[in-house]
């Protein structure tokens, strides 16, 4: 997030797009509720009438995958109505004149033809956000899990740059990160293009820095993404070490994923349960869970916080850092003889400019948000206050393009996927927690009541959902949360493996899968055939 969580209580106008925050980030959503109680206005754009949409002053029911068109239409209105921040544009941005030219044809009527949202609602949203003093944008995977995820984010940045909504309290462009330490995973250099602290691997000076630190020269070229690696299993990739990820259930196109992992010569999985992924491994190494380990998580607002061991792990389970240290030592690698997580974190801090100002002791009370460039620096709750990292903010000349697959006669319904409040990801944890498991015992396909009639389905009955990649059977729930022509399910339940269906395409730059859009066919079935998934 560009801004701290505390800022979520401060905007005059909140614009949420592609975020089901009350279910996926419930505690963050409480801050938005406080802002609304104070009198802030909220715009929500989402294909589904989620709880956040019910709370909104203005709800924009966009067709799945049409976000860029909506955002271009809003930018058109902001420019046309003169709701721009001229001083901010003049001093902190570049490319404004070219953007104005680019937006000429992107009228609200054009946006309506793609998104299905009435042009007057698009005008209203643009004027509400554009005229606010403090406008804040929040988004989640509904923006990024598309083949055009990068354009979606750039289009959001255009709106904030046009209106000067960066670097101030209650503003910003704020992605809500989905996992407890997904930010920290990137910070720590578990990326094919960056060393720790987002230092590009293709910069010779970074290569030299890490050659000195690690005693080994590392390739100047980027590695491949996980998506590419899975495609190359058995072709160029023959061994994998997977730590704490249930790839088989969480990734798109499950059959492809299982086939890929099975074609490896050697698969080692470190995890806390024998997940569907671990079942395919040659060696499974038992790790400590979150309550059994010491270390750090970095949250969505870039706050580095200490995780503390409260109980002993079962049997012989060991901390992840210890397991990987052992693997390194036994392969004869230098610099793997750690006896605690403390020197590991301190090494990460020393090598990462954004963590340079802290160490294990200083991070103890969780007060620091990166960047913390030097000792004594207070941390950076709010990014972009005086200038952007690369100087000026660049406008992007984005355009709408169709999802990888679009509905047709054979697959006439849009499927979109997501999360539910009571389950987490592939349910390796929440599926083994009794109380919460009672709250949400099974997956359902959410279908608009008019569509249940149209497809011959029955509320509470069973349906077969098919895509170009496979089919799953799932219980039907008739609900107006789904618009007509679009159905929804989560990917959490392994007996309803929704990711058998997905996997139509990827964003070409980030390789993020288009998990939010998948054309399907929905048919009634009399009774569910016992699952063969396990």
């Amino acid at each position, binding site marked *: 997030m560009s801004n701290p969580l505390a800022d979520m209580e401060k905007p005059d106008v909140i614009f949420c797009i592609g975020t089901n925050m009350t279910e996926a980030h419930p505690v963050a959503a409480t801050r938005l509720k406080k802002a609304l109680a104070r009198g802030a206005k909220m715009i929500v754009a989402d294909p589904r009438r989620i709880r956040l949409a019910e709370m909104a002053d203005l709800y924009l029911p966009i067709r799945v995958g049409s976000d860029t068109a909506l955002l271009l239409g809003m930018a058109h209105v902001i420019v046309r109505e003169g709701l721009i921040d001229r001083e901010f544009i003049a001093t902190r941005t570049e490319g404004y004149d070219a953007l104005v030219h680019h937006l000429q044809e992107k009228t609200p009527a054009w946006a309506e033809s793609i998104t299905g949202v009435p042009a007057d609602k698009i005008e209203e949203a643009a004027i509400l956000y554009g005229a606010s003093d403090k406008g804040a944008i929040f988004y989640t995977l509904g923006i990024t899990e598309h083949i055009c995820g990068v354009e979606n984010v750039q289009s959001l940045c255009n709106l904030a740059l046009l209106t000067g909504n960066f670097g101030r309290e209650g503003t910003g462009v704020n992605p809500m990160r989905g996992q*407890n330490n997904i930010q920290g995973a990137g910070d720590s250099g578990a990326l094919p293009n960056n060393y720790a602290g987002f230092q590009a691997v293709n910069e010779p000076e970074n290569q030299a820095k890490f050659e000195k630190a690690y005693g080994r020269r590392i390739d100047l070229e980027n590695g491949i993404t996980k998506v590419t690696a899975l495609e190359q299993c058995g072709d160029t990739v023959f061994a994998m070490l997977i730590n*704490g990820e249930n790839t088989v259930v969480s990734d798109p196109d499950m059959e492809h994923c299982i086939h890929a992992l099975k074609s490896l010569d*050697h698969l080692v999985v470190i995890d806390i349960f024998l997940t569907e992924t671990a079942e395919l491994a040659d060696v*499974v190494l038992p790790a400590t869970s979150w309550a059994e380990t010491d270390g750090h*998580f970095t949250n969505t607002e870039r706050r580095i916080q200490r995780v503390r061991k409260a*109980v002993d792990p079962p049997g012989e*389970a060991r901390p992840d850092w210890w397991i990987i240290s052992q693997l390194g030592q036994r392969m004869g690698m230098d610099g793997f003889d750690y006896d605690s997580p403390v020197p590991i974190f301190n090494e990460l801090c020393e090598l990462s400019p954004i963590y340079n100002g802290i160490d294990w002791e200083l991070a103890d009370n969780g007060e620091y948000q990166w960047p913390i460039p030097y000792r004594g620096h207070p941390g950076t709750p709010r990014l972009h206050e005086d200038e952007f990292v690369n100087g000026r903010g660049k406008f992007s000349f984005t355009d709408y393009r169709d999802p990888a697959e679009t509905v047709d006669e054979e697959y006439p319904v849009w499927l979109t996927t997501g999360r539910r409040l009571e389950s987490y990801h592939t349910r390796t944890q929440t599926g083994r*927690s009794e109380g919460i498991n009672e709250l949400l015992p099974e997956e359902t396909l959410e279908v608009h009541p008019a569509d249940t009639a149209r497809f011959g389905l029955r509320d509470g009955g069973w349906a077969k959902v098919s895509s170009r990649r496979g089919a799953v059977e799932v219980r039907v729930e008739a609900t107006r949360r789904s618009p007509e022509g679009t159905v929804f399910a989560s990917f959490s339940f392994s007996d309803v493996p929704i990711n058998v269906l997905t996997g139509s395409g990827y964003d070409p730059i980030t390789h993020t899968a288009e998990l939010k859009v998948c054309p399907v066919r929905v048919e009634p079935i009399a009774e569910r055939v016992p699952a063969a998934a396990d």
Partner: protein
Amino acid sequence: METTVAATETTRTICGYCGVGCSLDLVTRDNRIIAVQPAFDGPANAGALCVKGQFAYDYVHHPDRLAHPLVRGEDGELRRASWEEALARATQGFIDVLEKHGRRAVYGVASGRTPSEANYMMQKFIRVGFGTNYIDNCSRA
């Protein structure tokens, strides 16, 4: 009649679910979590927790937890092994692939669920061990 109950302990930590990073206190007794209490001085949550953070912790003590290393036996089934055997087997597999297919044949997938120390070690293992950048985490799917 006297009853003795073991004392409870409290450990301040961070929720293990989403990226908001709520502070909470784990209340433990006899090496088991018996309750979760929201931290009112938590910078991200100021005393709030959701239904997952507050209640979904008993997986930690679930009998399905992996308590021993496993290796795939001659019969194709996973069987219990010692750490010594499992680490030797894991290591030998990487060495064999390295020798047979070269250093770009080994790939690492790190986790958005594990601490940063685990992520740091994963990338260091790949970069120091194989000299490549063949490492990613689960943020793309």
